[in-house]
């Protein structure tokens, strides 16, 4: 009988050690899934953007992007590329250069040189910006153009959503972000810089 008690104690102790060695599971979901990751074959994380993707080139094209580990619950992806060193009318809002939403969760890249169309072949929608002085709105990528001599930071933020957005190319950034809130199940960032 004493032998049994000792065995139980040993088992208990062994169990405690095993539990202590297991990393604590975040939340209730068991081990943490691999994080969503965003990269570009053309731009190093934290590095400078080559001229060909910027206003330094008369024929600027969109930079190539690729991502991995889209969460299983994702219904769509959103890409927001923005200049974080800009101040517009003394407000917090910075300057979006490229917003693509309703990217299918099965898509894992955006090749270099996306067309300036409202919709991409896989169904993704590119936000439009109103033209200056009454010019027609233009969809897609607006090449980086910081003032000459200034280094600006351009963040590429990729979000995984558990929904699709009921919005079209004329939606504003505020409308897109408002529709995203409450549905973000993953985020990945690529930070870049550019100077003319």
């Amino acid at each position, binding site marked *: 009988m004493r032998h049994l008690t000792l065995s139980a104690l040993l088992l208990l102790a062994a169990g405690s050690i095993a539990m202590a060695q297991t990393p604590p599971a975040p939340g209730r979901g068991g081990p943490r899934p691999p994080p969503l990751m965003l990269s570009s074959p053309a731009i190093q994380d934290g590095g400078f953007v080559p001229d060909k993707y910027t206003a330094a080139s008369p024929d600027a094209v969109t930079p190539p992007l690729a991502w991995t580990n889209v969460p299983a619950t994702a219904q769509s992806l959103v890409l927001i590329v923005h200049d974080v060193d800009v101040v517009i009318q003394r407000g917090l809002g910075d300057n979006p250069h490229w917003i693509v939403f309703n990217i299918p969760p099965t898509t894992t890249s955006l090749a270099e040189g996306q067309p300036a169309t409202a919709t991409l072949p896989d169904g993704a929608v590119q936000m439009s910006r109103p033209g200056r002085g009454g010019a027609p709105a233009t969809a897609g990528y607006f090449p980086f153009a910081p003032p000459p001599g200034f280094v600006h930071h351009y963040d590429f933020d990729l979000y995984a959503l558990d929904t699709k957005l009921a919005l079209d190319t004329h939606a504003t950034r505020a409308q897109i972000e408002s529709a995203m809130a409450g549905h*973000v*199940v993953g985020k990945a960032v690529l930070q870049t810089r550019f100077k003319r």
Partner: protein
Amino acid sequence: MRRFLALTALVLFAATAAATAQAPRTRPPPLVLSSPAYADGGVIPDKYTQKAPQPSPSIPFNWTGTPAGTQSFVLILHDLDVVTNKTLTDSLHWLAWNIPATATALPEGVPNVAQLPDGTVQITHRNTIGFVGPGWPGPSYHHYTAELLALDTKLPLGTTATRDAVMAAANGHILGRAALAGRFHR
């Protein structure tokens, strides 16, 4: 005589116009944020992170190009890769506001007190006081961006203000903004 005057006026006008066109657009120097501890876009050294004994010293920052009319600065350090409750809110590591307009640096190891002698107020995301270093335990880098905002006002907020309250109060008063990108994982 009248024709001569008219001609003179025209010549003067043309000369003035040419001078105006040729005058370079004077843009003030940009607000630039840097750290002696790491390069822009680089990796934040362990001594400022949760890898070090806690609390770790705060990251030192320097800045140049304070815009004319600046009354105070806000400095925010946040982890861009974190999602909070499925929202667009990321993870705050340090928020200091009412930094005096005359300041050009935050030294390493700012004391963890709610208000510094110069009037600067500081919080973090867990409503603790002061700097909390990067700590992402995952296998790949998180992006910890430091942002400096130059404001045309001081913020009428006490030491219990939240991040949302500080940003809302700053909105509409930003004269300049500068980012410094950093990365870290354990």
